[in-house]
């Protein structure tokens, strides 16, 4: 039952307390989020660069297409002027009309086209096809525009606003012949014109301005609400030649231009990173918490162990105190005698044995004594011991001889009922005469030290509890200086050895200490015989009575 010392007891905290799982998990989460954000940001940057390049490339393409379209649009005007130059020498003004007519009308290239000739500083209209020119109502402006054409080597262009809407006006002149061609084209209604969704540029928003500036009044057409211009976000711009000025095309992406992977990768990285981070943080927390719980469990077990150990210790201490309380409290005294005793509790867990001794003064020179041993261990054994001790003491105080006292007791104890039996040596003596009468209930017999050492032959009767029995008495006379040594079997009994071997060892030990004071004699015997016992499990009681003085 003896528990080994809890060697792990106070190692708690030797490796330091486990870090707070929540805190470590939070650190993991922060690190993971930072990494995820960085990866996501870098990918987003790559995607943004790629988007911008795609936009610029598409815008450049659109500029080329527009440039071609403008050239194709303007070509009939130049051709018409050339035709008129040839026909003009023949005084035929109808050549112009015949050539340009297919290009003019609703849904055609131009709303109106007209032929003019310079006469000095004035411009005279020679012919006109299609609608009345919107700019004709403002003759001064038209005159100025045509004058500009004569000073330019190329076609001149201008955006004009009239009562009927916005127009683009072209004028091309040949200073050599004095002819000029003038044409107008309507801007889209409200300046809005959607890009066909199946076009190569269906993924772009655009705003087209006449000229090199992007001022609101220069706007020619856009696919968005003009009020929202200029285009925001990532934009690209290209300017293509247009007459004596240019067309500025500004674009922005309607939606993502590159691959979907490139578009979603930053988000995927961010979401994946956040998920992995959450998982890592959760796992970290679980692992740390598991470790912490395991350590707490270990600490709890250690604490319980210590508590159990302490309880065992307390219980054992209580029992030993109980048993000692049942032994004589002070060394008995009687004139003519030196008395010494030892009691040693067995090392047997919390169980204690039932060894005891008594010494009673019957009067000033007569005494009685008992050494007994209750078989077995535990509180029950101590209870039987107490009962036997006080019963025997009562009979001896009453004046009964040791045999009678034992015989009466033998009727009062029963191993079947008590679970224990007791071996007892009881004696009554006279300090003046040295006469001692002994009776024995199955107990190891006392030894008499008188120069030598010899067992006192006291024929054993049954132990108390083994049924009613009769006991024989033996009387001896202790010479002055002799010592009667009574003991329990714990002093001599060893496993794997004859009882006589133990008795012989005791006799030798006593002989060596025979001349020493009686207290030392007892102490030596107990120390030496218990000292070499490998398993000193049993209790030991030893009582020595030495007769002193002259007899």
């Amino acid at each position, binding site marked *: 039952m003896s528990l080994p010392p809890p060697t792990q007891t106070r190692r708690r905290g030797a490796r330091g307390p486990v870090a707070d799982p929540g805190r470590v998990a939070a650190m993991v989460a922060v690190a993971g989020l930072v990494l995820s954000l960085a990866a996501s940001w870098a990918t987003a940057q790559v995607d943004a660069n790629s988007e911008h390049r795609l936009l610029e490339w598409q815008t450049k393409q659109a500029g080329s297409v527009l440039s071609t379209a403008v050239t194709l649009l303007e070509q009939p005007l130049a051709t018409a002027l050339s035709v008129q130059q040839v026909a003009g020498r023949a005084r035929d003004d109808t050549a112009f009309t015949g050539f340009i007519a297919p290009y003019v009308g609703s849904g055609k290239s131009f709303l109106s086209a007209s032929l003019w000739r310079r006469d000095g500083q004035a411009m005279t209209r020679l012919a006109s096809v299609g609608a009345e020119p919107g700019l004709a109502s403002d003759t001064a402006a038209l005159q100025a525009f045509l004058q500009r054409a004569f000073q330019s080597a190329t076609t001149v262009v201008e955006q004009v606003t009239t009562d009927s809407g916005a127009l683009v006006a072209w004028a091309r002149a040949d200073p050599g012949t004095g002819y000029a061609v003038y044409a107008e084209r309507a801007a889209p209604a409200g300046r809005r014109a959607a890009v066909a969704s199946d076009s190569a540029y269906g993924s772009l928003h655009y705003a087209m301005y006449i000229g090199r500036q992007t001022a609101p009044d220069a706007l020619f057409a856009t696919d968005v609400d003009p009020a929202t211009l200029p285009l925001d976000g990532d934009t690209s711009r290209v300017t293509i030649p247009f007459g004596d000025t240019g067309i500025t095309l500004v674009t922005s992406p309607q939606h993502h231009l590159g691959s979907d992977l490139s578009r979603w990768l930053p988000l995927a990285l961010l979401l994946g990173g956040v998920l992995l981070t959450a998982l890592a943080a959760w796992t970290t927390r679980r692992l740390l918490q598991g470790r912490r719980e395991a350590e707490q469990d270990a600490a709890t077990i250690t604490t319980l162990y210590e508590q159990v150990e302490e309880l065992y210790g307390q219980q054992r201490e209580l029992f030993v105190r109980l048993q000692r309380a049942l032994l004589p409290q002070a060394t008995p005294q009687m004139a003519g005698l030196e008395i010494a005793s030892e009691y040693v509790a067995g090392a047997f867990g919390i169980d204690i044995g039932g060894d005891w001794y008594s010494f009673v003064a019957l009067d000033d020179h007569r005494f009685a004594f008992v050494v007994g041993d209750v078989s077995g261990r535990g509180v029950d054994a101590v209870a039987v011991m107490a009962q036997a001790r006080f019963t025997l003491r009562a009979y001896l105080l009453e004046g009964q001889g040791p045999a009678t006292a034992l015989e009466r007791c033998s009727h009062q104890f*029963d*191993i079947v009922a008590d679970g224990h039996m007791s071996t007892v040596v009881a004696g009554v003596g006279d300090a003046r005469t040295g006469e001692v009468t002994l009776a024995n209930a199955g107990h190891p017999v006392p030894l008499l030290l008188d120069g030598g050492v010899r067992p006192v032959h006291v024929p054993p009767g049954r132990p108390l509890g083994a049924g009613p029995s009769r006991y024989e008495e033996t009387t001896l006379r202790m010479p002055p200086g002799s010592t009667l040594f009574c003991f329990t079997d714990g002093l001599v009994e060893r496993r794997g050895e004859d009882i006589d071997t133990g008795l012989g060892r005791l006799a030798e030990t006593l002989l060596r200490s025979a001349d020493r004071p009686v207290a030392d004699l007892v102490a030596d015997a107990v120390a030496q015989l218990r000292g070499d016992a490998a398993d000193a499990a049993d209790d030991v009681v030893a009582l020595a009575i030495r007769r002193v003085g002259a007899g």
Partner: protein
Amino acid sequence: MGMAEFVTAAGPPAAPVLAVSGDLDIAAVDDFLHRAGALLGAGVLEVDLGAVTFIDSTGLGALVQLRRQADAAGAQVRLTNVPARVGRLLELTGLTGLLTDGPEP
């Protein structure tokens, strides 16, 4: 030395025999009394102590208790093959007469 072991067999003439070996001590007595008590019904029980290596006061007490239980039940217990060491203890404790066929002191 060693834990006690018990073997039960039918001995001649058909009386049960409880053979005890090892240490008949405080650790073994409960088991011993339980097994032996269960065999008392046959009227005669032979307890073979031939292989007992050690017996302490509780072991002796158990033999006494068995004997007294047998008396109460009208049964007989015989100890056989008692080792000298055990016989010497019986003698010292005044139990020879009670437990064996030897004379009462």
